[in-house]
């Protein structure tokens, strides 16, 4: 069920790829079908290359040892190189070789690939001359520019218990990325590489910053690390974190306040 609508005032396309719905919302007047089509083709290319749900994808073959790294597509080598940098950056918490993948191997860079592929899609749109858009891929978001003249992008952070409400709302103009790692539903995808067991401390962990690939990896690490992860992000200029614990408390880095919609907070305080 892929919806596409393009008018003189922009384009909004929803594509089901990589196991999720990717919403591409372009506000520029000059957006072309070719721009959106290239993004869609890119996402399917990423899916075909990196899907750990496809046993015949290059990443699965690589994980099984059937494909040598030197024979792997360049895009895989680039991604794995960046994942290695992120592993060092997070002190080993973000480790694409540490979690069991759906394809039965121990290589799963999906925690980075999702964000990185959307960040690249944003650059593809920029190369087509689009400067005001929002892409939401299963809850990982990039925005550029403004939704409308003199308006800010308004991004809700999902409430863990109530599907229609938010735990927080962040605003931004220009280049911004928001990634959330969460476990509203139990799944095998968030494992602490240091123990090999699922982590369950937090309901969700959100990272906001400049690059969605990095934010995606940081969100995964933040979810695993908990409060320590906030400490890590305090030392990562340009990236901020927001945690929701299972005890219904929220915690955030000092830089997160510059994004947070204060008016909504005040409205909420009045309700208390």
């Amino acid at each position, binding site marked *: 069920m892929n919806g596409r609508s393009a008018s003189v005032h922009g384009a909004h396309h929803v594509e089901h790829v990589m196991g999720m719905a990717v919403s591409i*919302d372009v506000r520029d007047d000059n957006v072309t079908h070719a721009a959106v089509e290239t993004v869609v083709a890119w996402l399917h290319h990423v899916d075909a290359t990196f899907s750990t749900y496809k046993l015949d994808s290059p990443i699965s073959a690589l994980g099984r040892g059937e494909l040598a790294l030197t024979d792997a597509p360049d895009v895989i080598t680039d991604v794995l190189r960046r994942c290695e940098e992120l592993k060092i950056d997070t002190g080993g918490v973000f480790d694409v070789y540490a979690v069991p993948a759906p394809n039965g191997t121990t290589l799963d860079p999906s925690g980075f690939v999702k964000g990185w592929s959307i960040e690249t899609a944003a650059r593809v749109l920029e190369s087509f001359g689009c400067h005001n858009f929002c892409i939401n891929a299963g809850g990982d978001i990039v925005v550029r520019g403004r939704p409308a003249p003199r308006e800010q992008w308004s991004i809700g952070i999902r409430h863990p218990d109530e599907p*229609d409400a938010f735990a927080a*709302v962040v605003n931004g103009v220009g280049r911004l990325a928001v990634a959330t790692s969460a476990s509203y539903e139990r799944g095998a995808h968030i494992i602490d590489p240091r123990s090999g067991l699922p982590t369950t401390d937090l309901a969700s962990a959100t990272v906001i910053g400049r690059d969605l690939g990095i934010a995606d990896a940081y969100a995964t690490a933040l979810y695993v690390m908990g409060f320590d992860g906030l400490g890590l992000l305090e030392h*990562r*200029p340009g990236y901020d974190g927001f945690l929701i614990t299972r005890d219904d408390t*929220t915690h955030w880095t000092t830089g997160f306040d510059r994004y947070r919609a204060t008016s909504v907070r005040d409205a909420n305080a009045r309700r208390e």
Partner: protein
Amino acid sequence: MTDQSPRSTYGWDSSVAGYPAHPPLDDKLDTRSTLTFDPHADRAARLARLTQRRAGGQELPPPGGRVAPRRRHPSKRSRVAALGLSLATTGGLTYAFASSADAGATSAALPGAAVSTADSATTLTTTSPSTSSSSAATAPSTTTGSATGRTPTTTAPTTTAPTTSASATGTTTVNGAAFTNRFGTVQVQAVFGADGKLTAVNVLQLPTDRKSVAINNRAVPTLNSEALTTQSAKVHTVSGATYTSQDYAKSLQSAIDTARAKGITKLA
């Protein structure tokens, strides 16, 4: 996390090995991987030009956007104070939390999961080791509230028959079958309008593992924290994980299939 030492949680000490202060990672466009994909030469050239501009240090200015202000790090004194505060409260909270660590996994049955018991289980067979609930018409309760916790299994998921109920307003609610994996049971409920369109999907059961791997008996930071509150606001988009597990999809599909068989909907 196995290390339970009362390490500072909020006043992070950057000299701790493994977490050095670090400049942001290079996020420049990687030309090679993008050009390898690009099917059309003219678009490849466009991206190459974009990259050249970036590599040459020409940052593309965001239209109308302002540059984020330079963030000031907290002073050393405030960091030390935060460290002292967190250590001072660690002892008290450690005692408080020590006996509250939960064990065992449960499946939480959400409130409002009213299930019609009119239909009895006749259609689906149970394929794997026993569920604790014999009546498949009610919400499956394979692992609820077990004092000894759930033993993870690697067997095929169990299923139970979906049920249906109709309301006076013309909407029909159909419960999907419950699917159990090694983390617990997943079951969703599909709500159809009078016209057969899917209007809502409610989650009836989700596995919630209360056994915390990283038992958090550290001091809860008192800076930048508040109770979780519910906010409704008009936003452009929402950040949060989505329900993507196969069990969720299977449960939803079973609800849709049941509804279609009963003529409630034409969805596939």
